[in-house]
């Protein structure tokens, strides 16, 4: 232990003040009330605005704030089946055009089975499929008794897992796009496990609407941009010209991913084509331009024809790519595009090119979602929980504080001071790291009260024993702390093991409990050992204590 009391008090003061600073936003910000300007804005240092003081309030879990927690499963089997069905239809179309006779093309599990009437057509078809559908690989072929030929195709193993991965990614993007429409603060949309998607919507009021919106099938449309600034400004005033509509592109900050600007586009109402005619979209790199990324799109036969006409008729115009009413890109049509494939190039970074490919695929192969888990807490129940949890913690701590003071006298008051500081530090740390406080988390704090006091109880009981052995108060305190220290450490480490396991396994509220419990154990070690000891040492050094009140 550091000898100099001033340094020890200094450490305590810094810890408490920093915790208080982090707690301030939570205490002050409420409804209309905001942080004072001098706090929120910080000061200017050179050209930078330095925000020294924290401005974020305690992060409350969905069970306290109210909101929805949805775990969605992406139906990959169905997505795969749809994709193979598309290939089957394409191959059939090709064979019809080329006059290749066939018995059937159908999907069988994860395989595409084509039965040709004549063996001699085998090579033609194989060549076509290999060239056009690079992700399909032949898994078997055999001559049938009646002279026909059976060909089996499937995704390559690597491509299959990539297919699944991309399907989840594109669904994630679709959901993210829609959740943005809800205008919530801090929604969370992340992958969970291998192929599931977790959506957390704090403070959502229309639960039914939100659920519906998320599970809606993605709609990708291509619409021509109306290049007329006057019409655009009219439309922005609310007078959208006949036959046009206003859509927006959400420009994200390249580093933070936050939406920083909404760029308006005036587009023709008529949809030129939808995502259905796209078979694939991938990101590729142009080696002749120093690895500049571009997006390669493939159309099915119907799409090939539509796209050839649209591009031919509108060379020089921009074609907006719109997913669920949000513009993702509006490339200029450079020339008539034939051959069923197109590329979108521009000076975008890899991330944006990737996003564009995802968007195109999302519209091309929308996947259905299954609701695996839902946890919704209405705002009123959340508010009730906060109120009751707070009251219970308050009453609990008051009882403990009272008891300690009665049972251990003046020393009990020192423990109470440690307890009080402990609360401030726990909440300060939670706020600083933006850890989530949940209802079980409040229970964790109540438990921590017990644990924090426990360390002091251990010390005081030891001190009493030392005093009974006839030691002076100073020696008794010294002996009590040093003898109890290892016991306290051992006892707390085991609890910490349980808390950490909980953290690993828990979700949502339970995780919040594990966090408060872990933080509480660590801070209670600080307050119950370091802080209370410092107070005792200070009193001992200043006053001649004959009788210790413990």
């Amino acid at each position, binding site marked *: 232990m550091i000898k100099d009391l001033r340094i020890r008090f200094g450490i305590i003061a810094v810890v408490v003040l920093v915790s208080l600073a982090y707690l301030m936003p939570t205490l002050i910000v409420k409804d209309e009330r905001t942080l004072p300007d001098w706090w929120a804005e910080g000061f200017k240092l050179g050209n930078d605005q330095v925000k020294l003081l924290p401005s974020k309030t305690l992060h409350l879990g969905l069970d306290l704030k109210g909101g929805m927690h949805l775990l969605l499963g992406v139906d990959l089997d169905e997505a795969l089946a749809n994709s193979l069905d598309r290939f089957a239809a394409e191959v059939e179309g090709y064979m019809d055009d080329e006059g290749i006779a066939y018995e059937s093309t159908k999907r069988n599990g994860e395989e595409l089975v084509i039965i040709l009437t004549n063996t001699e057509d085998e090579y033609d078809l194989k060549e076509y499929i290999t060239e056009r559908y690079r992700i399909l690989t032949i898994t078997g072929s055999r001559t049938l008794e009646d002279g026909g030929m059976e060909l089996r195709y499937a995704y390559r193993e690597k491509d299959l897992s990539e297919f699944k991965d991309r399907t989840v990614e594109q669904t994630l993007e679709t959901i993210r796009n829609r959740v943005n429409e809800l205008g919530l603060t801090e929604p969370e949309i992340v992958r969970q496990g291998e192929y599931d998607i977790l959506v957390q919507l704090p403070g959502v009021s229309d639960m039914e609407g939100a659920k519906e919106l998320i599970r809606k099938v993605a709609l990708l449309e291509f619409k021509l941009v109306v290049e007329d600034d006057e019409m655009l400004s009219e439309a922005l005033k609310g007078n959208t010209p006949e036959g046009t509509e206003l859509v927006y592109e959400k420009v994200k900050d390249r580093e933070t991913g936050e939406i920083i600007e909404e760029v308006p586009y005036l587009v023709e109402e008529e949809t030129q084509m939808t995502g259905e005619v796209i078979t694939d979209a991938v990101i590729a790199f142009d080696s002749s331009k120093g690895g500049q990324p571009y997006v390669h799109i493939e159309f099915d036969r119907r799409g090939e024809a539509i796209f050839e006409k649209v591009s031919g008729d509108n060379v020089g115009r921009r074609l907006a790519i719109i997913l669920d009413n949000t513009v993702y890109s509006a490339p200029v049509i450079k020339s008539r595009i034939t051959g069923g494939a197109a590329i979108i190039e521009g000076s975008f970074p890899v991330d944006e090119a990737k996003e564009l490919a995802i968007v195109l695929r999302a519209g091309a192969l929308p996947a259905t979602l299954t609701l695996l888990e839902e946890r919704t807490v209405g705002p009123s129940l959340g508010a009730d929980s906060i109120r009751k949890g707070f009251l219970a913690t308050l009453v609990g701590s008051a009882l*403990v504080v009272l008891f300690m003071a009665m049972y251990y006298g003046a020393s009990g008051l020192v423990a109470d001071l440690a307890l009080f500081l402990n609360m401030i530090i726990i909440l300060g740390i939670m706020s600083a790291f933006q850890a989530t406080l949940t209802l*079980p988390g409040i*229970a964790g704090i109540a438990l921590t009260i*017990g644990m924090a006091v426990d360390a002091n109880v251990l010390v005081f009981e030891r001190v009493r024993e030392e005093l009974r052995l006839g030691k002076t108060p100073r020696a008794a305190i010294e002996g009590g702390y040093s003898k109890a220290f290892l016991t306290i450490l051992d006892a707390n480490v*085991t*609890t910490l093991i349980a808390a950490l396991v909980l953290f*690993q396994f828990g979700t949502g509220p339970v995780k919040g409990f594990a966090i408060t419990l872990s933080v509480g154990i660590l801070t209670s070690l600080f307050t119950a050992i370091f802080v209370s000891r410092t107070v005792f040492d200070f009193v001992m050094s200043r006053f001649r204590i004959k009788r210790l009140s413990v």
Partner: protein
Amino acid sequence: MEFIKPDISYDIIGKRWYAYIISLVLILVSVGSLVLHGGPNYGIDFAGGSLIQVQFTKEVTLAEVKEVLTAAGLKDPVVQNFTGGEENEYIIRVVETDLDVTTLSETVVEDLSQHFGEGTVELRRVEMVGPRVGEDLKRKGLLAVILAVVGILIYVSVRFEFRYALGAVVALVHDSVITLGAFSLMNYEVSLPIIAAILTVIGYSINDTIVVFDRIRENLRKARKEPEEEVMNRSINETLSRTIITSGVTLLAVLALLFLGGGVIHDFAFALTVGILVGTYSSIYVASPVVLAWNKLFPQKGPARGKKRRR
């Protein structure tokens, strides 16, 4: 102020057979109840299904709610009063239904509003857990408990000796089983937070046990001639005051939660209350006697005690 006088000396170790009997009875009752109920009463977190909590702005009885829902085509909806909640607040549980689970809560609210009037029903909470997630949570929950027990076993083995770790683990298995048993007897549901509570009880109970073990180790080193039984008994007595005070203090906080914390946290607080009570008992009456029993079964060769030094 003192509750427990410093010079007390209860014969705890000597009367350990009584403790064995009490523990055995408690465990038998717990296991018996669990068996009779066909395992723990898993809540929807583990069993899957839906939970819908609604509050009415007017007087509505439980029977009425049930009637409306049954008429609406829900098979056997379980309707309960929400513990510690407001008047006219109910929890509806549906395990199996032909209706679309995705929109079940909306359907229920619609049906209820149609019957009791628009705007009289407020949807307070929805929990829906699909079968796959339920299975997954069950597996993870079990794994977590096992991991925590193994982690504690290893730590105590390293810091003390294996036989102490064994005593500690027997004590905490004892505590978890009885806590689960209490849930089964009360017919409360075992949900995700309850597993968290049991893990906390494990951590808490071990905390008490370690304080006792620590004192035993210290006293064994000081009094090498004294029989281990007597040292244990003295150590338990010496730490008795601390054990009771700490548990009592924590219990104060947890009881406040149980009575004032509201319905959502009620079962969780109940698990903690039972766990702390049983955990305190087991660290006094179970953990050390188990170490002793192990010694009798497998006598140690050589001077084992005091061999492990601190640090």
